[in-house]
């Protein structure tokens, strides 16, 4: 290369590009779009179906008309019964929407935490937030810490508990100014254990024989407390979190490979971890406050999404969010109808569906492919 002037011209190291070899750019793009498009359609189809299905089935066209009537004020003749109206509009629509939001939120939180700990077993509850929520919810139910009864104040104390635990993990993980992946995992595990012990102690110390059962809600997770408001708030939180993470997609790619790689690309790993951790903890805190701790979604869905579209976060995040939403919506449908009229805790369904997936993953993880 001819050196013009004093400095070398940029890119002298690179040979001429081959215009024909673009790594199948078009195929890559089409594949990404197909996944996002297909899953979006799947979600849009799932939502009304999930509202229609349940111990009392409601025809899908009734669902469409009720929702259309309420949301868009479509002037249709009222052909449905008041019972159908309240089932569709007051009970199931908020519940299905909350399920979609929580599923999406858990999935992206799992993606983010797996990237920043580089640990394939990392999941949203690693941050100890579920345990924190359960502890404060238990204190609230059993000893009236906070105002006591009323689901909104319970959600409030669960949120406070979740955040406190998240902050504790964060601070423990940062001792000495350096937040390494291993330290973060250890901090999460230890805070989780302490809080679980505290919850057990509270249950044991109370006179209420039903105490354990009411606390179980937060540990197993449920969408039964869904209201239009919680669904909207949770949805908004998940949306904002997704956007904040998407804006750092490239940085997450680098961090997932290693701190050295991130630094080599001009990214400060410690600062990025702190920001992503804070965003994720806020999001998971809100999820837990709305629905308790629904296991397995945040662990499994990120892996499934990676199998579908690879590890680049710009595509991985939306695909994981959509997969998580669809998965949880259908898991909740099963929870409603398997033992109808009795309802199964959602955590049982996600565990039964999730564990076999985990086995498959363990086999797939064989590094020799």
């Amino acid at each position: 290369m001819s050196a013009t002037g004093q400095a070398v011209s940029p890119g002298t190291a690179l040979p001429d590009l081959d215009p024909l070899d673009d790594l199948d750019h078009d195929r890559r793009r089409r594949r990404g779009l197909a996944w996002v498009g297909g899953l979006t359609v799947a979600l849009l189809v799932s939502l009304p179906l999930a509202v229609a299905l349940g111990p009392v089935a409601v025809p899908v066209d009734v669902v469409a008309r009720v929702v259309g009537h309420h949301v868009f004020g479509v002037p249709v003749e009222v052909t449905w019964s008041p019972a159908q109206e309240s089932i569709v509009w007051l009970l199931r629509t908020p519940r299905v929407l909350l399920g979609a939001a929580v599923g999406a939120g858990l999935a992206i939180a799992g993606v983010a935490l797996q990237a920043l700990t580089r640990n394939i077993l990392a999941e949203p509850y690693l941050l100890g937030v579920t345990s924190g929520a359960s502890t404060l919810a238990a204190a609230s139910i059993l000893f009236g810490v906070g105002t006591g009864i009323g689901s909104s104040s319970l959600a409030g104390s669960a949120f406070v508990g979740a955040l406190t635990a998240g902050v504790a993990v964060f601070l423990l993980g940062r001792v000495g100014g350096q937040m390494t992946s291993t330290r973060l995992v250890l901090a999460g595990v230890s805070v989780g254990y302490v809080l679980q012990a505290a919850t057990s102690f509270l249950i044991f110390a109370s006179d209420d024989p039903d105490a354990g059962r009411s606390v179980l809600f937060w540990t197993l997770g449920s969408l039964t407390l869904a209201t239009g408001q919680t669904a909207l708030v949770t949805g908004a939180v998940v949306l904002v979190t997704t956007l904040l993470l998407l804006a750092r997609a490239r940085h997450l790619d680098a961090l997932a490979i290693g701190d050295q790689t991130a630094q080599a690309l001009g990214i400060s790993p410690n600062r990025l971890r702190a920001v992503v951790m804070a965003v994720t903890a806020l999001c998971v805190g809100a999820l837990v406050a709305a629905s308790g701790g629904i296991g397995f979604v945040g662990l499994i869905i990120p892996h499934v999404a990676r199998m579908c579209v690879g590890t680049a976060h710009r595509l991985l995040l939306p695909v994981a969010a959509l997969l998580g939403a669809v998965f949880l919506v259908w898991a909740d449908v099963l929870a409603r109808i398997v033992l109808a009229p009795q309802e199964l805790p959602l955590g049982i369904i996600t565990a039964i569906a999730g564990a076999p997936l985990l086995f498959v993953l363990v086999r797939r993880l064989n590094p020799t492919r």
Partner: protein
Amino acid sequence: MITARDVSVGYDEHLVVDGVGLSAGPGEVVGLIGPNGSGKTTFLRTLYAALRPRAGLVTVDDQPVAGLRGADLARRIAVVAQETPSDLPVTVADMVLLGRAPHSGALAAFGRDDHRVVAASLARVGARHLAERRYATLSGGEKQRVLVARTLAQRADHLLLDEPTNHLDIGYQHDLLRMVGRLDVTTVVVLHDLNLAARYCTTLVALHQGRIVATGTPAEVLTPELLREVYRIEARPMTVDGCLQLFFSPVEEQSTSPSGV
């Protein structure tokens, strides 16, 4: 052009790097050598601002690296660092695409040209056929080639390598360094193998206990006296086909007088 002047790095009271400097011009390959714990890697990390030195100044093309934003720095300096492997199943193409990150906006998708650059970079290191493989499944030699391809995709004209020949068999060691030498970029490389350093570096900087003990051409630096002092090894320099190479033998335990060199 990378220059470092009087760089010191320390943790607490202890100085790991003490007043080290170097200058690497276009096309030069500067080798950092020295025993374990002599501060080579620590010093290298100050060159790309991954570590902030306690004192001293590092510049790239006359601009202080501390003042450059992350992406700006990454467009000038590319790094092959030592990395513990991650569990996540990254493909080779995605690994090399990371090198395009400093060149594109945070939200923009990688375009056709980014993919072309990745393809050409992989082709340049003879690893085009590995694009769809998972990085973790590659052999040590293939991994290093892919990491070098990433630095090519980054299109920086400064290249820093931290013991790139680790875990490579001898064929790949020479392969890699010959390839790096032909890249026509400013290179600083940490090397353990002194014969590789003698063959492929234009300049050597020898560190011992955080300080520079010698700097110059391989012939000026790799003297029996210096190697005895720094590595406690007897070395017999010889010239084979115009290239300096060293033959090593251990220092006698009790002997007080230097044995015949």
